[in-house]
């Protein structure tokens, strides 16, 4: 299959699916809810709208090429970091660390991705931001909750900037026999992780009985977990044609990726509970950016390292 045919096939598949679920959502709203407010159906229709927006944005970014993808995910990181630090327990003495996090660390990380400086973008935030940001807070000599404050700022940068930046970094890999097709690695990752999320949601609604961590997230169940992961593994094997993986390998990669995605969602839910908020970016209707990308945050670096270690040169 050529690059062009592959692109057409995936676009046709995704848009057919979107049109089908949109039609289903509109039908449910008209017939089952008779046009009146209905929590479950309205929530589903909001999600479908978000998928349309996400599909079109990612599609346009991929069409715009490398710069488009880097800029898109820099924007995703910015929004997610903003939501994360909004509920972080920082104090006045951290102001300059926060300025550096938003206006230096974030753009510089994406600059390094853009110029393919692999050795540096893998250590910039884990080593250099880690060392320098606490210095800026310490010289303000406010020691109250110092450990919690610096830990939280670093954690926010790691999860919202470092982890998410591994999605555009997939474009930097050199895979023999897979030249000019790296954009498919991004599409594959997003489809697998989103697919697992959606099927988890559906299976939990239909069969969910045994909660995994009820204190953290009452909607995550064993039944949803099994359904979501199993679907993603099958979907991964079916979509292996767009990747350098064989169907069996694609299934294993999907398994590792969606496991990380699932537990990423769980960890970020635990953080929300700790800070007493229901959604990230609480003043946006229907939750924020970090709610949408929680799973992919944890999945992206692991997926990146698997592909880099076993497939790239």
């Amino acid at each position, binding site marked *: 299959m050529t690059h062009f045919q592959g692109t057409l096939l995936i676009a046709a598949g995704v848009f057919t699916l979107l049109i089908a679920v949109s039609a289903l959502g509109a039908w449910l709203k008209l017939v089952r809810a008779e046009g009146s407010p209905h929590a479950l159906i309205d929530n589903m229709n909001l999600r479908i709208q978000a998928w349309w927006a996400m599909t079109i944005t990612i599609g346009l970014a991929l069409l715009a090429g490398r710069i488009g993808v880097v800029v898109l995910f820099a924007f995703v990181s910015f929004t997610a970091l903003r939501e994360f630090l909004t509920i972080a327990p920082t104090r006045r003495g951290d*102001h300059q660390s926060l300025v550096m996090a938003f206006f230096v660390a974030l753009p510089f990380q994406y600059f390094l991705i853009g110029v393919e400086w692999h050795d540096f973008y893998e250590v910039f935030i884990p080593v250099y931001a880690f060392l320098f940001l606490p210095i800026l807070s310490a010289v303000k000599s406010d020691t109250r909750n110092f450990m919690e404050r610096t830990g939280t700022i670093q954690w926010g940068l790691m999860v919202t900037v470092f982890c998410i930046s591994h999605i555009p970094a997939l474009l930097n890999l050199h895979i023999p026999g897979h030249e000019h097709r790296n954009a498919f690695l991004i599409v594959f990752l997003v489809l697998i992780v989103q697919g697992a999320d959606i099927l988890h949601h559906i299976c939990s609604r239909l069969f969910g009985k045994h909660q995994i961590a009820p204190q953290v997230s009452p909607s995550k169940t064993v039944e949803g977990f099994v359904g979501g992961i199993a679907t993603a593994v099958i979907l991964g094997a079916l979509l292996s044609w767009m990747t350098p993986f064989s169907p069996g390998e694609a299934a294993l990669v999907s398994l590792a990726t969606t496991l990380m995605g699932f537990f990423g969602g769980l960890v970020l839910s635990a953080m929300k509970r700790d800070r007493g908020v229901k959604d990230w970016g609480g003043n946006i209707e229907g939750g924020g950016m970090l709610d949408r990308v929680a799973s992919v945050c944890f999945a992206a670096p692991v997926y990146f390292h698997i592909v880099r270690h076993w497939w790239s040169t």
Partner: protein
Amino acid sequence: MYPNHFMQRPVPEAVSWALTRFTRLITGAQARWIGCAPVPVQRIYFGNHNSHADFALIWASLPTPLRRITRPVAGADYWNASPLRRYIIHEVLHGVVIERSREGGTVEPVDVMAAALERGDSLILFPEGTRNTTEERLLPMKSGIYHLAQKCPHIDLVPVWMDNLGRLLPKGEIVPVPLLCSISFGAPLRLQEGEDKDAFLARIRDALLATMSTARPSES
């Protein structure tokens, strides 16, 4: 609808538009009208004060018809200190500038504010008098708002609670960080007949805290 007292000249209008957009963008705040509706009637908006950006956020959160008749009350010592600040406060925000530390002979601040109310303008003011940089949620209320309510007892006082602005631009910092802020408008109150100063100031304080707890239900 009140007559518009200020000529709309193109340059200050453009600056006002840019300031409004910039404030909304950097704070990410959407106004929540919890205790009253965003209608263009004469009011006194009183808010908690953590940052210079407080003015800008209340100003930017008002829909245009309300913004046209609303004037922030500002301290002359800060706002008259440089040409840029003077331009912003007089030409763009149409502020009511008052002398905070008076030496004999100048006009009573309350009289200046009352004169603006008599023209039909709404006011934005901060009853704590100065920015709160402490750990406390609110500083003690100054008596100015009580004297103003005595002079104009027929005007609604609307509490406004803003969260996170002190973190966005703390006192003494220049570069704001784009943390998400929130702004909520609570239920209006008026001076009651025979109410004394302490009782009224306590109600003003309670109204601000009540607006805060409806704005963040998890901490109530």
